[in-house]
């Protein structure tokens, strides 16, 4: 039974990842391969999977049969902090906007995007999941560090959690992860996101940022993936990190 739950869960996760890849144009760049890659989090996964089956049964009784359903509040409340983290990373539970499928044409090996991609096309983190990440920032930071060092990769779900919980303390980890795997340009995107989100004055005033923001919007913006741009992003992020720590 345990094996069945785990298999179903892993299959669902992989399906979500691959369905995203299928939808996105013809770009076969290595960076794109990392774009929607998720880190599998297994702490309490079996218990959560079982709860999801129970929740789906309750939903069915209420007349909802065309989606699996997500944990009822009493089920959610019974999870430990670590299990809630697993749930947030594996099962975003709120509906996603319907026009969020991006169809880039430029090879992502040649660019650094300014915005992190969305999670699974159909769901995003709910308010209770976002609140959990923010309120348990220290624990979440610890789990992300543990998983990244164990897997030698940082999936989109972990990057998204860092952005939501605003975990600037992980900047050195993000940089070391990028240095170990330079194909994942979205690690640089995450650094940019953290600096922009925290309104780092040096970064917002930089010619680098102004060049990207000159058209007003930077949702679809990107810069060339060059040694100098990479170096600029990393050195700015480190400066920002040390400035934060002095406060």
């Amino acid at each position: 039974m345990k094996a069945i739950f785990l298999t179903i869960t892993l299959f669902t996760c992989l399906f979500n990842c691959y369905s995203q890849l299928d939808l996105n144009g013809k770009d076969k760049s290595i960076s794109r391969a990392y774009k929607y890659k998720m880190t599998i989090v297994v702490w309490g996964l079996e218990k959560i999977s079982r709860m999801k089956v129970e929740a789906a049964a309750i939903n069915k009784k209420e007349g909802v049969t065309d989606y699996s359903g997500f944990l009822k509040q009493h089920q959610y409340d019974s999870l430990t902090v670590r299990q809630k983290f697993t749930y947030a990373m594996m099962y975003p539970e709120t509906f996603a906007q319907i026009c969020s499928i991006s169809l880039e044409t430029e090879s992502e090996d040649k660019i650094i995007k300014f915005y992190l991609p969305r999670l699974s096309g159909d769901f995003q983190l709910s308010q209770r999941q976002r609140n959990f990440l923010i309120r348990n920032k220290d624990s979440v930071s610890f789990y992300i560090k543990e998983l990244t060092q164990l897997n030698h990769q940082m999936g989109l779900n972990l990057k998204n959690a860092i952005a939501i919980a605003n975990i600037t303390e992980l900047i050195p980890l993000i940089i070391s992860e990028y240095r170990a795997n330079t194909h994942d340009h979205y690690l640089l995107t995450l650094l940019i996101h953290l600096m922009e989100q925290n309104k780092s004055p040096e970064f917002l005033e930089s010619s680098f940022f102004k060049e990207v923001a000159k058209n007003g919007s930077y949702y679809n913006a990107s810069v060339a993936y060059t040694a100098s741009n990479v170096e600029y992003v990393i050195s700015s992020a480190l400066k920002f990190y040390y400035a934060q720590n002095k406060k």
Partner: protein
Amino acid sequence: MRRIKNSLFFLLLPFFANAQLEFVKIPAGTYSLGSKLHGLNKAHKVRLDSFWISTTEITNAEFDRFVSNSHYVTDAEKRHNAMVFEPGLREFEWMEDSTAYWRFPNGVSRGGIENKMNHPVTCISYRDAQAYCKWAGYRLPTLDEWEAAARANTRTDFFFGANNQLIHQYANIWKGVDHLKADSTDEFVYTAPVKSFAPNAFGLYDMYGNVFEFCSRKPFGATAKPGVVHARGGSWWCSIHSCGFFNSVDIGRVASIASFSNQGFRVVRQ
């Protein structure tokens, strides 16, 4: 006698209820749809029978008549799971609001529809749209029917040509560079009254922008995913900088029980 009168009343109710709806006939024929380079809506030819499509999206007034007569309760009212928007959110971020439903599409705190009865109904799910159709004796357009109607015999991404800068003449969309500040360039932060913008060559209003319109069936060549439905045409939320689905090609998707404040529909009769 009284029973017969009552039966007649309920039999004819849908026709009275929809007396204000106007339709345009889309002729039978073979239509070239999709786009060669599109990831989801691949180029394809399809033979369609003639059908009549409503010239506007279903309004709050229309939906009110449906609810008043049928006592229908929408998904958002039952599940308190509607997704709403207010300026200040980052791109593609929506908020859950347990108070939101079609009468308060962005939540009670952001006002109701009392003065917006000629705006498209929103904050309804695909299932709600289907319930309206069943009551009124109509149906949702298929993805192909919607596109044939939107294109109005054109092959460009837009029914007005290839220049997307003309979109503002035809569609209520978001004009800001992001969604952090309200779009104050016109009076419509959210929906606009139907027929506020120019129609396409078939006389159909708001095919682009205002609200995403639910369609039935799956995209050509795609595999159906349980619980996932599709909608087209973009919405008031969409801007040139993000989303950009206000065209004849892109196909959006969402869970069938999700209720967003930029989702609505128009109807078809054979």
